[in-house]
């Protein structure tokens, strides 16, 4: 078999960034269509019509759904049956994100945190964000690309509660956060919630929660119930699409959890906008690439 080319990972990383910006996953589109169909508020219905029209035009004319092409995040799962050089994969992902920005081209938003200088290439020190996972059974490299815009990301938050605050503090944190965010994160999006872990892990869990397909539930029945209760409560606020009132204020609340310390009770909320963008590819040893979401 020919030697695996990391150039392929770079091409896929580039392609995924551009695909994610133009084609929403079917679960998100379906959720938006359903929200449109059941909406009783006239203003909100008009907003959903505009959203659906925008998605159709983006696909038809190969335009960006939203002008905020965000910061690139790659969630990578390495299969034990297809071992690769992680450092080379990381470099290929970075190069792919940069090439998508320059060759499409579109606005790069990565910026030095103090000088605020923007290299206009979507990357830089620490970027793209790369999360690594491993799967003993997989014979492929799985790459999930998430372009994260700032309108939604800026509304994200984490808090270290204490055990005595209980579960109710966590629920209150989520609903209060959504209300305080109002129209800023372009609702109705996916509300990602991380529970447990450490300060860093809980934030990563919240991010992983926003990339779960709409309609999926947490396998833990207690957390699945909490997802449903929070989704219903947020929708009952009446915040509505774009914060202008309506029946749907979130497409779904997703919770991901981890064990935490006996003295800790951490929570994080990662807010996702209605263009809940993501694109996935599986790369196999023979160079075959399967695209999906």
């Amino acid at each position, binding site marked *: 078999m020919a030697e695996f080319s990391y150039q392929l990972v770079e091409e896929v990383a580039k392609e995924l960034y551009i695909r994610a910006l133009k084609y929403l996953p079917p679960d998100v589109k379906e959720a938006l269509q359903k929200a449109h169909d059941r909406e009783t508020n006239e203003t909100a219905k008009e907003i959903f019509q505009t959203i659906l*029209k925008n998605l159709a035009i983006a696909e038809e004319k190969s*335009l960006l759904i939203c002008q905020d092409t965000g910061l690139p995040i790659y969630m990578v799962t390495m299969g034990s049956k297809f071992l690769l050089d992680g450092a080379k994969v990381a470099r290929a992902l970075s190069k792919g994100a940069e090439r998508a920005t320059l060759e499409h081209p579109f606005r790069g938003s990565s910026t030095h945190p103090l000088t605020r200088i923007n290299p206009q290439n979507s990357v830089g020190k620490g970027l793209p964000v790369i999360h690594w996972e491993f799967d003993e059974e997989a014979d492929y490299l799985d790459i999930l690309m998430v372009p994260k815009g700032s309108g939604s990301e800026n509304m994200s938050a984490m808090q270290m509660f204490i055990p005595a605050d209980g579960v109710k503090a966590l629920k209150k944190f989520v609903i209060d956060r959504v209300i305080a965010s109002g129209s800023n994160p372009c609702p109705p999006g996916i509300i990602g919630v991380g529970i447990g872990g450490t300060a860093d892990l809980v934030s990563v869990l919240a991010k992983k929660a926003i990339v779960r397909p709409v309609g999926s539930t947490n396998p833990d029945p207690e957390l699945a119930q909490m997802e449903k209760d929070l989704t219903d409560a947020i929708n009952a606020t009446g915040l509505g699409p774009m*914060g202008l009132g309506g029946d749907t204020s979130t497409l779904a609340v997703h919770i991901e959890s981890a064990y935490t310390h006996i003295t800790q009770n951490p929570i994080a909320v990662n807010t996702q906008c209605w263009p809940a963008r993501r694109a996935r590819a599986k790369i196999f040893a023979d160079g075959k690439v399967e695209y999906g979401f």
Partner: protein
Amino acid sequence: MAHYNLTTPLSEEDVRQLKVRDTVTVNGHIFGIRDATQIRMFDHQQAPPVDLRGAICIHTAPSLRKVGDKWEKISIGTTTSTRMERFTPPLIENYGVRAVVGKAGLLEGSLDAMKTSGACYLAIVGGAAALETTQIEEVEAVYWEDLHPEAIYKFRVKDFGPLIVAMDSHGNHLYFDVKKQITQRLPELYKRLGIE
């Protein structure tokens, strides 16, 4: 809830007829402005090199490509308006802007200026850049080019919208109304979640 087709420049009468929840479609021109544009206008006291009387301004940092003398569209979308709050009253009062297009709304200061001078806030659907880019026919001019992508852009638009009147010239504020309703509902929602 009525629908209006408006052509720029807007008159005071055009704006005064609008009430929150009405929808608007615009033909003519819309001017793109943003943070840096208004910092120059109001913090550095430089008058814009274009007449904004009766104008509609949109909060945007467009993604454009300059080919020769022409600016080609890549993606034009809308940014959050709340950051522009302190600039908006003088934009309306000193330069005669009649409508501001954006997302997430403006605050009390702008609402007062809109009431006094006859202006309004038109909410666009954030994130819907593909549609916006299509409804902007051409980037006719760019002023203060050194500030790009936060310069002043003259966009020629065709059937731009639908935009939702979210702040009108009669003191009504749709975002505030929605917030008030949420505050009323919240105790019941807390109870349902077992919080209080």
